[in-house]
Protein backbone atom coordinates (compact mmCIF):
# COMPACT_ATOMS: atom_id res chain seq x y z
CA UNK A 1 0.00 0.00 0.00
CA UNK A 2 1.59 3.28 -1.05
CA UNK A 3 0.46 6.54 0.49
CA UNK A 4 0.49 10.15 -0.66
CA UNK A 5 -0.69 13.51 0.60
CA UNK A 6 -2.52 15.83 -1.78
CA UNK A 7 -3.54 19.38 -1.08
CA UNK A 8 -6.29 21.28 -2.89
CA UNK A 9 -6.45 25.06 -2.49
CA UNK A 10 -9.87 26.06 -1.15
CA UNK A 11 -9.88 29.07 -3.44
CA UNK A 12 -10.12 26.71 -6.40
CA UNK A 13 -11.78 23.58 -5.04
CA UNK A 14 -14.86 22.94 -2.93
CA UNK A 15 -15.04 20.07 -0.46
CA UNK A 16 -17.90 18.63 -2.53
CA UNK A 17 -15.78 18.54 -5.69
CA UNK A 18 -12.92 16.74 -3.94
CA UNK A 19 -15.32 14.27 -2.32
CA UNK A 20 -16.97 13.50 -5.67
CA UNK A 21 -13.57 12.85 -7.21
CA UNK A 22 -12.63 10.58 -4.31
CA UNK A 23 -15.86 8.62 -4.74
CA UNK A 24 -15.23 8.12 -8.44
CA UNK A 25 -11.77 6.78 -7.67
CA UNK A 26 -12.83 4.58 -4.76
CA UNK A 27 -12.14 1.42 -6.76
CA UNK A 28 -8.47 2.45 -7.02
CA UNK A 29 -7.83 4.66 -3.99
CA UNK A 30 -9.00 5.17 -0.45
CA UNK A 31 -8.95 8.70 0.91
CA UNK A 32 -9.09 10.55 4.21
CA UNK A 33 -10.28 14.06 3.51
CA UNK A 34 -9.97 16.97 5.94
CA UNK A 35 -10.57 20.70 5.62
CA UNK A 36 -7.82 23.09 6.62
CA UNK A 37 -8.07 26.86 6.72
CA UNK A 38 -6.62 27.30 3.25
CA UNK A 39 -6.60 23.85 1.76
CA UNK A 40 -8.44 20.57 1.59
CA UNK A 41 -5.98 17.88 2.61
CA UNK A 42 -6.34 14.38 1.21
CA UNK A 43 -4.41 11.41 2.51
CA UNK A 44 -4.51 8.90 -0.29
CA UNK A 45 -3.76 5.20 -0.15
CA UNK A 46 -3.26 3.40 -3.42
CA UNK A 47 -4.10 -0.29 -3.36
CA UNK A 48 -1.22 -2.77 -3.54
CA UNK A 49 -0.53 -4.08 -7.00
CA UNK A 50 -1.66 -0.86 -8.70
CA UNK A 51 0.47 -0.31 -11.76
CA UNK A 52 1.92 3.19 -11.98
CA UNK A 53 0.38 4.64 -8.79
CA UNK A 54 1.71 8.10 -9.74
CA UNK A 55 -0.44 8.02 -12.88
CA UNK A 56 -3.50 7.17 -10.78
CA UNK A 57 -2.78 10.17 -8.55
CA UNK A 58 -2.42 12.42 -11.59
CA UNK A 59 -5.75 11.18 -12.88
CA UNK A 60 -7.26 11.86 -9.47
CA UNK A 61 -6.01 15.46 -9.52
CA UNK A 62 -7.47 15.95 -13.00
CA UNK A 63 -10.74 14.40 -11.89
CA UNK A 64 -10.97 16.90 -9.02
CA UNK A 65 -10.54 19.64 -11.58
CA UNK A 66 -13.27 18.16 -13.75
CA UNK A 67 -15.52 18.03 -10.69
CA UNK A 68 -14.99 21.76 -10.17
CA UNK A 69 -16.12 22.29 -13.73
CA UNK A 70 -19.14 20.03 -13.29
CA UNK A 71 -20.05 22.00 -10.18
CA UNK A 72 -19.95 25.25 -12.15
CA UNK A 73 -22.07 23.81 -14.96
CA UNK A 74 -24.62 22.50 -12.46
CA UNK A 75 -24.82 25.85 -10.69
CA UNK A 76 -25.03 27.86 -13.87
CA UNK A 77 -27.66 25.68 -15.51
CA UNK A 78 -29.80 24.58 -12.56
CA UNK A 79 -32.56 27.12 -13.28
CA UNK A 80 -32.91 26.18 -16.92
CA UNK A 81 -32.71 22.47 -16.03
CA UNK A 82 -35.62 22.87 -13.63
CA UNK A 83 -37.52 24.89 -16.21
CA UNK A 84 -37.07 22.20 -18.87
CA UNK A 85 -38.20 19.43 -16.54
CA UNK A 86 -41.15 21.46 -15.28
CA UNK A 87 -42.23 22.05 -18.87
CA UNK A 88 -41.64 18.38 -19.75
CA UNK A 89 -43.83 17.05 -16.93
CA UNK A 90 -46.59 19.64 -17.08
CA UNK A 91 -49.92 18.31 -18.33
CA UNK A 92 -48.76 14.70 -18.13
CA UNK A 93 -50.87 13.82 -15.11
CA UNK A 94 -47.70 12.85 -13.26
CA UNK A 95 -47.67 15.96 -11.11
CA UNK A 96 -50.47 16.20 -8.55
CA UNK A 97 -51.50 19.79 -9.28
CA UNK A 98 -51.94 18.79 -12.91
CA UNK A 99 -54.49 16.08 -12.33
Amino acid sequence: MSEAKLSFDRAGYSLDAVQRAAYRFSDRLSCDISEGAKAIEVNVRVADGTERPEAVLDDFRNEALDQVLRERIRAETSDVRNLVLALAFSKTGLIETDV
Partner: protein
Amino acid sequence: MSKFREPAAFQAASADWQLLPFRFERIRGRVLLTNLVGEHLFLSAEEFEQLGSSDLPTDSPLVRRLRAKHVIREKDDELPVELLAIKARTRYRRLAEFTSLHILVASLRCEHSCPYCQVSRQSSDREAFDMRSETAALALDSAFRSPSQNIKIEFQGGEPLLNFGLIEEVVEAAETRNETEHKNLGFVIATNLALLDDRVLDFCRAHNVYISTSLDGPADLHNKNRPRPGRNSWELATAGIQRVREELGVDRVSALMTTTRSSLGRVREIVDAYVEQGLTSIFLRTLSPYGFAIKTKSFNAYDVDHWLPFYEEGLDYIIELNARGVPMVEQYAALILKKMLTNDDPGYVDLTSPAGIGIGAIVYNYDGDVYASDEGRMLAEMGDKTFRLGNLHDDSYEEIMLSEALLAPLEESFAPSAPMCQDCAFETYCGSDPTYHHATSGDFLGRKPTSGFCRRNMAIFKLLLERYEGDATTRALFQTWAGH
Protein backbone atom coordinates in the same frame (compact mmCIF):
# COMPACT_ATOMS: atom_id res chain seq x y z
CA MET B 1 -1.17 22.55 -14.09
CA SER B 2 -4.78 23.53 -14.69
CA LYS B 3 -6.39 22.25 -17.86
CA PHE B 4 -9.08 24.88 -17.65
CA ARG B 5 -9.52 28.55 -17.47
CA GLU B 6 -10.55 30.10 -14.22
CA PRO B 7 -14.03 29.07 -13.08
CA ALA B 8 -15.26 32.60 -13.64
CA ALA B 9 -14.78 31.99 -17.35
CA PHE B 10 -17.73 29.60 -17.27
CA GLN B 11 -20.09 32.28 -16.09
CA ALA B 12 -21.47 33.32 -19.41
CA ALA B 13 -23.19 36.51 -18.30
CA SER B 14 -21.20 38.62 -20.68
CA ALA B 15 -21.28 36.17 -23.58
CA ASP B 16 -23.84 36.11 -26.37
CA TRP B 17 -24.64 32.53 -25.52
CA GLN B 18 -25.50 30.64 -22.36
CA LEU B 19 -24.82 27.13 -21.18
CA LEU B 20 -27.60 24.58 -21.10
CA PRO B 21 -27.36 21.59 -18.73
CA PHE B 22 -24.88 19.03 -20.00
CA ARG B 23 -22.52 16.38 -18.69
CA PHE B 24 -19.11 15.34 -19.94
CA GLU B 25 -16.65 12.50 -19.82
CA ARG B 26 -13.07 12.34 -21.13
CA ILE B 27 -12.54 9.37 -23.43
CA ARG B 28 -9.13 8.71 -24.97
CA GLY B 29 -8.12 12.34 -25.30
CA ARG B 30 -11.49 13.58 -26.50
CA VAL B 31 -14.43 14.89 -24.49
CA LEU B 32 -17.90 13.40 -24.81
CA LEU B 33 -20.71 15.86 -24.08
CA THR B 34 -24.29 14.75 -23.56
CA ASN B 35 -27.13 17.20 -23.17
CA LEU B 36 -30.11 16.95 -20.83
CA VAL B 37 -31.80 14.30 -22.99
CA GLY B 38 -28.69 12.30 -23.94
CA GLU B 39 -27.90 13.73 -27.37
CA HIS B 40 -24.15 13.59 -27.75
CA LEU B 41 -21.18 15.11 -29.47
CA PHE B 42 -17.42 14.75 -29.15
CA LEU B 43 -15.10 17.71 -28.79
CA SER B 44 -11.35 17.82 -28.86
CA ALA B 45 -9.73 18.85 -25.58
CA GLU B 46 -8.92 22.22 -27.17
CA GLU B 47 -12.50 22.79 -28.27
CA PHE B 48 -13.73 21.85 -24.81
CA GLU B 49 -11.43 24.43 -23.30
CA GLN B 50 -12.82 27.02 -25.69
CA LEU B 51 -16.28 26.28 -24.33
CA GLY B 52 -15.07 27.94 -21.16
CA SER B 53 -14.24 31.06 -23.09
CA SER B 54 -16.92 33.70 -22.88
CA ASP B 55 -15.52 35.48 -25.93
CA LEU B 56 -16.02 32.49 -28.23
CA PRO B 57 -17.66 34.11 -31.28
CA THR B 58 -21.34 33.35 -31.64
CA ASP B 59 -20.93 32.63 -35.33
CA SER B 60 -18.03 30.17 -34.92
CA PRO B 61 -18.48 26.60 -36.21
CA LEU B 62 -18.01 25.28 -32.67
CA VAL B 63 -20.83 27.42 -31.31
CA ARG B 64 -23.07 26.22 -34.13
CA ARG B 65 -22.31 22.58 -33.27
CA LEU B 66 -22.93 23.18 -29.59
CA ARG B 67 -26.19 24.99 -30.30
CA ALA B 68 -27.36 22.20 -32.60
CA LYS B 69 -26.91 19.72 -29.75
CA HIS B 70 -28.54 21.97 -27.14
CA VAL B 71 -25.38 22.31 -25.09
CA ILE B 72 -25.58 26.10 -25.34
CA ARG B 73 -28.23 28.53 -26.52
CA GLU B 74 -28.29 32.09 -27.69
CA LYS B 75 -28.85 34.38 -24.79
CA ASP B 76 -32.48 34.17 -23.59
CA ASP B 77 -33.54 32.08 -26.59
CA GLU B 78 -36.55 30.07 -25.36
CA LEU B 79 -36.77 27.65 -28.28
CA PRO B 80 -34.02 25.25 -27.10
CA VAL B 81 -35.70 25.08 -23.70
CA GLU B 82 -39.03 24.14 -25.27
CA LEU B 83 -37.42 21.58 -27.57
CA LEU B 84 -35.54 19.98 -24.70
CA ALA B 85 -38.78 19.81 -22.73
CA ILE B 86 -40.56 18.03 -25.59
CA LYS B 87 -37.69 15.58 -25.95
CA ALA B 88 -37.55 14.92 -22.19
CA ARG B 89 -41.29 14.33 -22.13
CA THR B 90 -40.97 11.87 -25.02
CA ARG B 91 -38.17 10.06 -23.22
CA TYR B 92 -40.20 9.66 -20.03
CA ARG B 93 -43.56 8.99 -21.64
CA ARG B 94 -43.57 5.38 -20.43
CA LEU B 95 -43.77 6.52 -16.82
CA ALA B 96 -47.36 7.56 -17.27
CA GLU B 97 -48.06 4.28 -19.07
CA PHE B 98 -47.08 2.17 -16.06
CA THR B 99 -46.80 -1.65 -16.09
CA SER B 100 -47.10 -3.15 -19.55
CA LEU B 101 -45.33 -6.52 -19.19
CA HIS B 102 -47.12 -9.04 -16.98
CA ILE B 103 -45.28 -12.31 -16.45
CA LEU B 104 -47.30 -15.33 -15.34
CA VAL B 105 -45.32 -18.30 -14.06
CA ALA B 106 -47.57 -21.06 -15.37
CA SER B 107 -45.52 -23.85 -13.80
CA LEU B 108 -42.24 -24.24 -11.99
CA ARG B 109 -41.88 -27.73 -13.36
CA CYS B 110 -39.38 -28.37 -16.15
CA GLU B 111 -38.01 -31.42 -17.94
CA HIS B 112 -34.64 -29.68 -18.32
CA SER B 113 -32.14 -29.48 -15.46
CA CYS B 114 -30.01 -26.47 -16.41
CA PRO B 115 -27.34 -25.94 -13.73
CA TYR B 116 -27.71 -22.16 -13.67
CA CYS B 117 -31.52 -22.13 -13.41
CA GLN B 118 -32.70 -20.86 -10.06
CA VAL B 119 -36.33 -21.80 -10.12
CA SER B 120 -37.19 -25.00 -11.95
CA ARG B 121 -38.34 -28.22 -10.32
CA GLN B 122 -37.97 -31.70 -11.71
CA SER B 123 -41.29 -32.92 -10.45
CA SER B 124 -44.52 -34.41 -11.73
CA ASP B 125 -46.48 -32.87 -8.86
CA ARG B 126 -48.86 -30.54 -10.67
CA GLU B 127 -50.64 -29.59 -7.44
CA ALA B 128 -47.44 -28.30 -5.87
CA PHE B 129 -45.85 -26.34 -8.71
CA ASP B 130 -48.49 -25.37 -11.31
CA MET B 131 -50.44 -22.12 -11.26
CA ARG B 132 -54.12 -22.72 -10.51
CA SER B 133 -57.02 -21.18 -12.46
CA GLU B 134 -58.15 -18.95 -9.59
CA THR B 135 -54.61 -17.56 -9.20
CA ALA B 136 -54.39 -16.89 -12.94
CA ALA B 137 -57.75 -15.07 -12.84
CA LEU B 138 -56.42 -12.77 -10.11
CA ALA B 139 -53.25 -12.16 -12.14
CA LEU B 140 -55.38 -11.19 -15.11
CA ASP B 141 -57.39 -8.79 -12.91
CA SER B 142 -54.13 -7.19 -11.84
CA ALA B 143 -52.85 -6.91 -15.42
CA PHE B 144 -56.02 -5.15 -16.54
CA ARG B 145 -55.84 -2.77 -13.58
CA SER B 146 -52.64 -1.33 -15.08
CA PRO B 147 -53.35 2.03 -16.75
CA SER B 148 -51.10 1.00 -19.62
CA GLN B 149 -52.80 0.84 -23.01
CA ASN B 150 -50.32 -1.87 -23.99
CA ILE B 151 -50.61 -5.12 -22.07
CA LYS B 152 -48.27 -7.97 -22.85
CA ILE B 153 -48.84 -11.25 -21.02
CA GLU B 154 -45.81 -13.52 -20.99
CA PHE B 155 -46.00 -17.10 -19.77
CA GLN B 156 -42.86 -18.35 -18.11
CA GLY B 157 -41.72 -21.28 -16.05
CA GLY B 158 -40.15 -23.73 -15.38
CA GLU B 159 -41.52 -24.88 -18.67
CA PRO B 160 -44.93 -23.22 -19.17
CA LEU B 161 -46.05 -25.74 -21.81
CA LEU B 162 -46.28 -28.29 -18.98
CA ASN B 163 -49.37 -26.34 -17.91
CA PHE B 164 -50.66 -25.46 -21.37
CA GLY B 165 -54.30 -25.82 -20.37
CA LEU B 166 -53.90 -22.82 -18.09
CA ILE B 167 -52.30 -20.79 -20.90
CA GLU B 168 -55.31 -21.51 -23.13
CA GLU B 169 -57.62 -20.49 -20.33
CA VAL B 170 -55.82 -17.20 -19.61
CA VAL B 171 -55.50 -16.17 -23.28
CA GLU B 172 -59.17 -16.79 -23.97
CA ALA B 173 -60.27 -15.02 -20.79
CA ALA B 174 -58.03 -12.04 -21.59
CA GLU B 175 -59.42 -11.79 -25.12
CA THR B 176 -63.00 -11.90 -23.85
CA ARG B 177 -62.23 -9.23 -21.30
CA ASN B 178 -60.51 -7.09 -23.89
CA GLU B 179 -63.70 -6.87 -25.95
CA THR B 180 -64.70 -4.15 -23.49
CA GLU B 181 -61.26 -2.95 -22.30
CA HIS B 182 -59.81 -2.32 -25.80
CA LYS B 183 -56.15 -2.62 -24.80
CA ASN B 184 -53.34 -3.46 -27.21
CA LEU B 185 -53.09 -7.01 -25.97
CA GLY B 186 -50.23 -9.38 -26.78
CA PHE B 187 -49.15 -12.83 -25.64
CA VAL B 188 -45.76 -14.54 -25.46
CA ILE B 189 -44.83 -18.03 -24.35
CA ALA B 190 -41.22 -18.36 -23.15
CA THR B 191 -40.53 -22.03 -23.84
CA ASN B 192 -37.64 -24.37 -24.58
CA LEU B 193 -39.88 -25.82 -27.35
CA ALA B 194 -39.20 -29.42 -26.31
CA LEU B 195 -42.94 -29.95 -25.80
CA LEU B 196 -44.14 -28.11 -28.91
CA ASP B 197 -46.96 -30.00 -30.62
CA ASP B 198 -49.87 -29.41 -32.99
CA ARG B 199 -52.20 -28.34 -30.19
CA VAL B 200 -49.79 -25.60 -29.13
CA LEU B 201 -49.13 -24.47 -32.70
CA ASP B 202 -52.81 -24.38 -33.61
CA PHE B 203 -53.64 -22.35 -30.51
CA CYS B 204 -50.76 -19.90 -31.09
CA ARG B 205 -51.89 -19.42 -34.68
CA ALA B 206 -55.50 -18.82 -33.70
CA HIS B 207 -54.65 -16.36 -30.92
CA ASN B 208 -51.60 -14.63 -32.35
CA VAL B 209 -49.29 -15.87 -29.60
CA TYR B 210 -45.56 -15.24 -29.98
CA ILE B 211 -42.85 -17.69 -29.00
CA SER B 212 -39.67 -16.74 -27.19
CA THR B 213 -37.17 -19.55 -26.87
CA SER B 214 -33.61 -20.25 -25.81
CA LEU B 215 -30.74 -20.99 -28.16
CA ASP B 216 -27.28 -20.93 -26.64
CA GLY B 217 -25.38 -21.57 -29.88
CA PRO B 218 -24.12 -24.74 -31.54
CA ALA B 219 -25.45 -28.14 -30.46
CA ASP B 220 -22.64 -29.18 -28.11
CA LEU B 221 -22.68 -25.88 -26.22
CA HIS B 222 -26.47 -25.66 -26.00
CA ASN B 223 -26.81 -29.28 -24.83
CA LYS B 224 -24.05 -28.81 -22.25
CA ASN B 225 -25.81 -25.74 -20.85
CA ARG B 226 -29.26 -27.31 -20.97
CA PRO B 227 -29.25 -30.97 -19.98
CA ARG B 228 -32.42 -33.03 -20.35
CA PRO B 229 -33.20 -36.71 -20.74
CA GLY B 230 -32.05 -37.73 -24.22
CA ARG B 231 -29.47 -34.91 -24.31
CA ASN B 232 -31.35 -33.45 -27.25
CA SER B 233 -32.34 -29.97 -26.10
CA TRP B 234 -30.70 -28.30 -29.14
CA GLU B 235 -32.31 -30.73 -31.60
CA LEU B 236 -35.77 -30.08 -30.13
CA ALA B 237 -35.26 -26.31 -29.91
CA THR B 238 -34.05 -25.90 -33.49
CA ALA B 239 -36.75 -28.23 -34.86
CA GLY B 240 -39.29 -26.16 -32.90
CA ILE B 241 -37.93 -22.89 -34.24
CA GLN B 242 -38.29 -24.15 -37.78
CA ARG B 243 -41.83 -25.43 -37.19
CA VAL B 244 -42.94 -22.09 -35.73
CA ARG B 245 -41.31 -20.19 -38.60
CA GLU B 246 -42.96 -22.40 -41.21
CA GLU B 247 -46.39 -22.72 -39.65
CA LEU B 248 -46.85 -19.37 -37.89
CA GLY B 249 -44.47 -17.02 -39.70
CA VAL B 250 -40.80 -16.09 -39.50
CA ASP B 251 -41.44 -13.18 -37.16
CA ARG B 252 -43.34 -15.23 -34.59
CA VAL B 253 -40.33 -16.76 -32.88
CA SER B 254 -37.30 -15.14 -31.31
CA ALA B 255 -34.50 -16.63 -29.27
CA LEU B 256 -32.45 -15.60 -26.27
CA MET B 257 -29.07 -16.95 -25.27
CA THR B 258 -27.42 -17.45 -21.93
CA THR B 259 -23.68 -16.94 -21.71
CA THR B 260 -21.98 -19.49 -19.50
CA ARG B 261 -18.26 -19.89 -19.01
CA SER B 262 -18.35 -22.48 -21.80
CA SER B 263 -19.65 -19.82 -24.19
CA LEU B 264 -16.70 -17.47 -23.73
CA GLY B 265 -14.40 -17.63 -26.74
CA ARG B 266 -17.14 -19.07 -28.96
CA VAL B 267 -19.16 -15.99 -29.79
CA ARG B 268 -18.70 -16.30 -33.56
CA GLU B 269 -20.02 -19.86 -33.52
CA ILE B 270 -22.95 -18.72 -31.40
CA VAL B 271 -23.85 -15.96 -33.86
CA ASP B 272 -23.43 -18.40 -36.76
CA ALA B 273 -25.87 -20.79 -35.08
CA TYR B 274 -28.47 -18.01 -35.09
CA VAL B 275 -27.80 -17.23 -38.74
CA GLU B 276 -28.19 -20.92 -39.61
CA GLN B 277 -31.61 -20.96 -37.98
CA GLY B 278 -32.70 -17.98 -40.07
CA LEU B 279 -32.89 -15.73 -37.01
CA THR B 280 -32.06 -12.08 -37.56
CA SER B 281 -31.45 -10.95 -34.02
CA ILE B 282 -29.44 -12.13 -31.05
CA PHE B 283 -29.16 -10.84 -27.49
CA LEU B 284 -25.63 -11.34 -26.18
CA ARG B 285 -26.56 -11.57 -22.51
CA THR B 286 -24.66 -11.95 -19.30
CA LEU B 287 -25.63 -14.50 -16.72
CA SER B 288 -27.57 -12.94 -13.85
CA PRO B 289 -25.64 -12.99 -10.58
CA TYR B 290 -28.44 -14.71 -8.71
CA GLY B 291 -29.20 -18.02 -7.14
CA PHE B 292 -27.66 -21.08 -8.67
CA ALA B 293 -25.58 -18.89 -10.95
CA ILE B 294 -23.63 -17.92 -7.84
CA LYS B 295 -23.94 -21.28 -6.13
CA THR B 296 -22.60 -23.30 -9.05
CA LYS B 297 -19.50 -21.17 -9.49
CA SER B 298 -17.46 -23.94 -11.03
CA PHE B 299 -19.87 -24.18 -13.94
CA ASN B 300 -20.67 -20.60 -14.65
CA ALA B 301 -18.46 -18.13 -12.94
CA TYR B 302 -16.98 -15.38 -15.02
CA ASP B 303 -16.71 -11.69 -14.38
CA VAL B 304 -17.22 -8.56 -16.42
CA ASP B 305 -13.61 -8.58 -17.58
CA HIS B 306 -14.16 -11.99 -19.16
CA TRP B 307 -17.54 -11.14 -20.62
CA LEU B 308 -16.62 -7.81 -22.25
CA PRO B 309 -14.17 -9.28 -24.82
CA PHE B 310 -16.88 -11.85 -25.64
CA TYR B 311 -19.35 -9.04 -26.26
CA GLU B 312 -16.93 -6.89 -28.24
CA GLU B 313 -15.91 -9.75 -30.52
CA GLY B 314 -19.56 -10.67 -31.00
CA LEU B 315 -20.59 -7.11 -31.83
CA ASP B 316 -17.76 -6.69 -34.32
CA TYR B 317 -18.60 -10.00 -35.94
CA ILE B 318 -22.25 -8.96 -36.27
CA ILE B 319 -21.19 -5.64 -37.82
CA GLU B 320 -19.00 -7.63 -40.24
CA LEU B 321 -21.88 -9.97 -41.13
CA ASN B 322 -24.14 -7.02 -41.91
CA ALA B 323 -21.44 -5.52 -44.12
CA ARG B 324 -21.44 -8.83 -46.01
CA GLY B 325 -25.20 -8.63 -46.47
CA VAL B 326 -26.23 -11.00 -43.67
CA PRO B 327 -28.85 -9.18 -41.57
CA MET B 328 -28.37 -9.58 -37.81
CA VAL B 329 -29.19 -7.24 -34.93
CA GLU B 330 -27.50 -7.36 -31.53
CA GLN B 331 -30.45 -6.60 -29.29
CA TYR B 332 -28.66 -5.07 -26.32
CA ALA B 333 -26.83 -2.66 -28.60
CA ALA B 334 -30.11 -1.85 -30.36
CA LEU B 335 -31.80 -0.99 -27.03
CA ILE B 336 -28.95 1.33 -26.06
CA LEU B 337 -28.69 2.90 -29.51
CA LYS B 338 -32.37 3.76 -29.39
CA LYS B 339 -31.66 5.69 -26.21
CA MET B 340 -28.51 7.25 -27.67
CA LEU B 341 -29.73 8.24 -31.09
CA THR B 342 -33.43 8.92 -30.60
CA ASN B 343 -35.54 10.58 -27.93
CA ASP B 344 -37.44 7.37 -27.36
CA ASP B 345 -36.82 4.96 -24.51
CA PRO B 346 -37.51 1.29 -25.26
CA GLY B 347 -38.38 0.73 -21.60
CA TYR B 348 -36.02 -2.19 -21.15
CA VAL B 349 -36.29 -3.02 -17.45
CA ASP B 350 -32.53 -3.08 -16.70
CA LEU B 351 -31.90 0.19 -18.51
CA THR B 352 -34.49 2.53 -17.10
CA SER B 353 -34.47 4.97 -14.23
CA PRO B 354 -36.67 4.96 -12.22
CA ALA B 355 -36.00 1.23 -12.37
CA GLY B 356 -38.37 -0.89 -14.42
CA ILE B 357 -39.18 -3.25 -11.56
CA GLY B 358 -42.91 -3.38 -10.93
CA ILE B 359 -43.70 -0.30 -12.99
CA GLY B 360 -42.33 -1.70 -16.28
CA ALA B 361 -42.77 -5.41 -15.68
CA ILE B 362 -44.23 -7.50 -12.88
CA VAL B 363 -44.17 -11.21 -12.10
CA TYR B 364 -47.04 -13.34 -10.80
CA ASN B 365 -45.58 -16.54 -9.44
CA TYR B 366 -47.37 -19.90 -9.70
CA ASP B 367 -48.48 -19.64 -6.05
CA GLY B 368 -49.84 -16.08 -6.32
CA ASP B 369 -46.79 -14.34 -4.92
CA VAL B 370 -46.08 -11.11 -6.79
CA TYR B 371 -42.52 -10.04 -7.50
CA ALA B 372 -41.13 -6.77 -8.78
CA SER B 373 -38.99 -8.59 -11.34
CA ASP B 374 -38.04 -12.02 -12.58
CA GLU B 375 -34.70 -11.66 -10.81
CA GLY B 376 -36.62 -10.83 -7.61
CA ARG B 377 -38.44 -14.14 -8.00
CA MET B 378 -35.11 -15.91 -8.46
CA LEU B 379 -33.71 -14.33 -5.30
CA ALA B 380 -36.81 -15.46 -3.42
CA GLU B 381 -36.10 -19.03 -4.48
CA MET B 382 -32.76 -18.63 -2.71
CA GLY B 383 -34.51 -17.46 0.45
CA ASP B 384 -34.32 -13.68 -0.06
CA LYS B 385 -37.85 -12.26 -0.42
CA THR B 386 -36.84 -8.58 -0.53
CA PHE B 387 -38.66 -8.05 -3.84
CA ARG B 388 -41.86 -9.92 -2.92
CA LEU B 389 -44.62 -7.31 -3.16
CA GLY B 390 -47.46 -9.41 -1.81
CA ASN B 391 -49.78 -12.24 -2.82
CA LEU B 392 -52.68 -12.07 -5.26
CA HIS B 393 -54.89 -14.03 -2.86
CA ASP B 394 -54.20 -11.82 0.16
CA ASP B 395 -53.38 -8.32 -1.06
CA SER B 396 -55.17 -5.72 -3.16
CA TYR B 397 -53.68 -4.12 -6.29
CA GLU B 398 -53.09 -0.94 -4.28
CA GLU B 399 -51.35 -2.81 -1.46
CA ILE B 400 -49.09 -4.55 -3.96
CA MET B 401 -48.18 -1.51 -6.07
CA LEU B 402 -47.71 0.81 -3.09
CA SER B 403 -45.77 -1.67 -0.97
CA GLU B 404 -42.48 -0.57 0.55
CA ALA B 405 -40.92 -3.57 -1.17
CA LEU B 406 -41.50 -1.73 -4.45
CA LEU B 407 -41.31 1.94 -3.48
CA ALA B 408 -38.08 1.73 -1.47
CA PRO B 409 -35.90 0.21 -4.22
CA LEU B 410 -37.44 2.55 -6.83
CA GLU B 411 -36.69 5.62 -4.76
CA GLU B 412 -33.29 4.62 -3.40
CA SER B 413 -31.87 3.54 -6.76
CA PHE B 414 -33.02 6.53 -8.87
CA ALA B 415 -29.93 7.23 -11.00
CA PRO B 416 -30.29 10.99 -11.58
CA SER B 417 -29.84 11.50 -7.83
CA ALA B 418 -27.30 8.72 -7.27
CA PRO B 419 -23.65 9.43 -6.48
CA MET B 420 -21.56 9.35 -9.65
CA CYS B 421 -24.59 8.63 -11.87
CA GLN B 422 -25.69 12.22 -11.29
CA ASP B 423 -22.63 13.53 -13.12
CA CYS B 424 -22.22 10.66 -15.56
CA ALA B 425 -22.42 11.56 -19.25
CA PHE B 426 -23.97 8.12 -19.92
CA GLU B 427 -26.74 8.40 -17.35
CA THR B 428 -29.56 8.82 -19.87
CA TYR B 429 -28.46 5.61 -21.64
CA CYS B 430 -28.18 3.64 -18.44
CA GLY B 431 -30.52 2.44 -15.73
CA SER B 432 -30.69 1.67 -12.08
CA ASP B 433 -30.87 -2.01 -11.36
CA PRO B 434 -31.78 -2.33 -7.66
CA THR B 435 -32.13 -6.11 -7.85
CA TYR B 436 -28.60 -6.54 -9.20
CA HIS B 437 -27.09 -4.19 -6.65
CA HIS B 438 -29.05 -5.72 -3.79
CA ALA B 439 -27.81 -9.17 -4.83
CA THR B 440 -24.19 -8.10 -5.27
CA SER B 441 -23.61 -5.34 -2.72
CA GLY B 442 -26.48 -5.59 -0.25
CA ASP B 443 -28.22 -2.28 -1.00
CA PHE B 444 -30.43 -1.02 -3.79
CA LEU B 445 -28.01 1.62 -5.01
CA GLY B 446 -24.65 -0.14 -4.98
CA ARG B 447 -21.24 1.51 -5.07
CA LYS B 448 -20.85 2.54 -8.66
CA PRO B 449 -17.03 2.55 -8.87
CA THR B 450 -17.00 -1.15 -7.99
CA SER B 451 -20.35 -2.13 -9.54
CA GLY B 452 -20.15 -4.80 -12.25
CA PHE B 453 -23.36 -3.35 -13.72
CA CYS B 454 -21.77 0.10 -14.05
CA ARG B 455 -18.49 -1.26 -15.36
CA ARG B 456 -20.17 -3.43 -17.99
CA ASN B 457 -22.55 -0.76 -19.22
CA MET B 458 -19.95 2.03 -19.28
CA ALA B 459 -17.69 -0.20 -21.38
CA ILE B 460 -20.54 -0.99 -23.79
CA PHE B 461 -21.57 2.67 -24.12
CA LYS B 462 -17.99 3.61 -24.97
CA LEU B 463 -17.67 0.71 -27.40
CA LEU B 464 -20.87 1.63 -29.23
CA LEU B 465 -19.91 5.30 -29.48
CA GLU B 466 -16.45 4.36 -30.72
CA ARG B 467 -17.86 2.12 -33.45
CA TYR B 468 -20.56 4.67 -34.31
CA GLU B 469 -18.00 7.43 -34.74
CA GLY B 470 -15.56 5.06 -36.44
CA ASP B 471 -16.99 4.60 -39.94
CA ALA B 472 -19.98 5.56 -42.03
CA THR B 473 -21.18 1.99 -42.65
CA THR B 474 -21.40 1.16 -38.96
CA ARG B 475 -23.00 4.51 -38.29
CA ALA B 476 -25.73 3.76 -40.85
CA LEU B 477 -26.20 0.26 -39.42
CA PHE B 478 -26.53 1.59 -35.87
CA GLN B 479 -29.07 4.13 -37.04
CA THR B 480 -31.24 1.33 -38.41
CA TRP B 481 -30.83 -0.61 -35.14
CA ALA B 482 -31.89 2.47 -33.19
CA GLY B 483 -35.15 2.45 -35.15
CA HIS B 484 -35.53 -1.31 -34.72
